[in-house]
């Protein structure tokens, strides 16, 4: 061992971003699922460009639809992530997704204590069809997961705004959208939030960016 550097972890501290999206049947209307697929790809590609010696974004992607929630991408360094394409179908088993998010964040093997606080991103256009209350309360109130930043988007009037206002870690983190176009805007907002943390001298302080104007979106 020739230098102090030989004793150091060579990877930057992980900054986990955990995304949970709705792929229930209702997302198939008015172009929402297509907009989500495009927005997710743009989101992943745009934060791939962020580079820092002090933090490395790790992404995990969950979805809920059909009869259950699934983990589609386990926690992975952003440079290695390939985004899936979703099809809309079935119910809205959001409670199952909350349980999976909780399990991931409590796992110190997957998210070691040297990691920065995770950001959870939730997007939905409907009301949970499974038992969501207890899993959500566990996620937001208990243990390690309660310390994550939580951002959410409610698309349309059918989304459970009351539930989502309780889910987010700050009122500014609840974004209300009316149309498919707003999904892309929301992910721009998430990108700005994550990249501000990456560039910050204090990545564990809450960063609330301005919502992007429509003009800043390049369709």
């Amino acid at each position, binding site marked *: *061992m020739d*230098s*102090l*550097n*030989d*004793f*150091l*972890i060579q990877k*930057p*501290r992980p900054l986990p971003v955990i995304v949970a999206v709705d792929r229930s049947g209702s997302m198939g209307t008015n172009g929402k699922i297509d907009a989500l697929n495009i927005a997710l790809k743009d989101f992943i590609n745009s934060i791939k460009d962020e580079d820092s*010696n*002090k933090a490395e974004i790790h992404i995990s992607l969950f979805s809920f639809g059909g009869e259950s929630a699934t983990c589609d991408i386990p926690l992975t360094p952003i440079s290695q992530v390939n985004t899936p394409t979703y099809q809309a179908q079935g119910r809205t088993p959001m409670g199952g997704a909350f349980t999976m998010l909780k399990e991931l964040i409590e796992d110190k093997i997957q998210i070691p*204590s*040297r*990691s*920065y*606080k*995770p950001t959870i991103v939730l997007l939905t256009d409907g009301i949970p069809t499974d038992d969501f209350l207890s899993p959500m309360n566990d996620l937001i109130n208990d243990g*390690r997961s309660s*310390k994550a930043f939580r951002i959410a988007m409610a698309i349309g009037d059918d989304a459970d705004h009351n539930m989502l206002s309780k889910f987010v870690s700050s009122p500014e983190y609840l974004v209300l959208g009316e149309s498919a176009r707003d999904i892309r805007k929301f992910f721009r907002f998430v990108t700005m939030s994550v990249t501000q943390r990456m560039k910050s*001298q*204090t990545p*564990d302080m809450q960063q609330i960016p301005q919502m992007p104007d429509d003009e800043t979106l390049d369709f």
Partner: protein
Amino acid sequence: MELKTTIIQASIRGDKHEAIPNQDYINVFENDEFLITTVSDGLGSSKNSLEGAQIACKSVIDEIQNFQLSSELPFLNNKIKEKWKKEIESISSSISDYRTTNSFIAVFKKEKKIIVGQIGDVLVSLRMDGLFRYLESTSKDFSNETVCLGSGRDENFKLALFEFGHTFDFLIATDGIADELQTEKIETLHDYFKNKFQNIEASKRNDALKCDLEEFLNEKNNDDKSMIFIWSNKN
């Protein structure tokens, strides 16, 4: 027989807003009876945490000198916490502005005993007569999340008492350093420090250590970085 030791220490400020000072603090006290080394890491989110860190180190040193080894260790925990709280309350009504972690190693020279204490995520690793151990902060959830003095919760020092026969070496390091270390290599790091720094002129050791921290650790994170490494010398 006189206990001879070599001490190296360094503290560097993290890359942060220029108005914020280095909020780490190291203190070493030595007389015929004791060698007490203590390191505090004031929390960046508390505006007077450097003072809190300094007072924590002073409280540790004062209370260890008054501590009887025949007493229970939780008694020492209470005495340090009470002393720190009383000192803070004498200057401010807002204890949370002074939040700090602290770790210490106190060598009772005549008795050949060592007390190790830790509240929060300041790493302590020690090797006595060849047997290595380290205290990890298991309660830490994420980077820059830690239990501390002044949190408003009744959090306690983890304390342990050890005996040594002939030799010891130990490391105390704040999380700006400790979070970047490969834990399986910490014992070898002790050897690295001893081998490297015993060959450097005494007056230049701390500067050399500071250069190492600046070269290899400053780019890793924005935290302040402080450490002390001590080893006993053969008589």
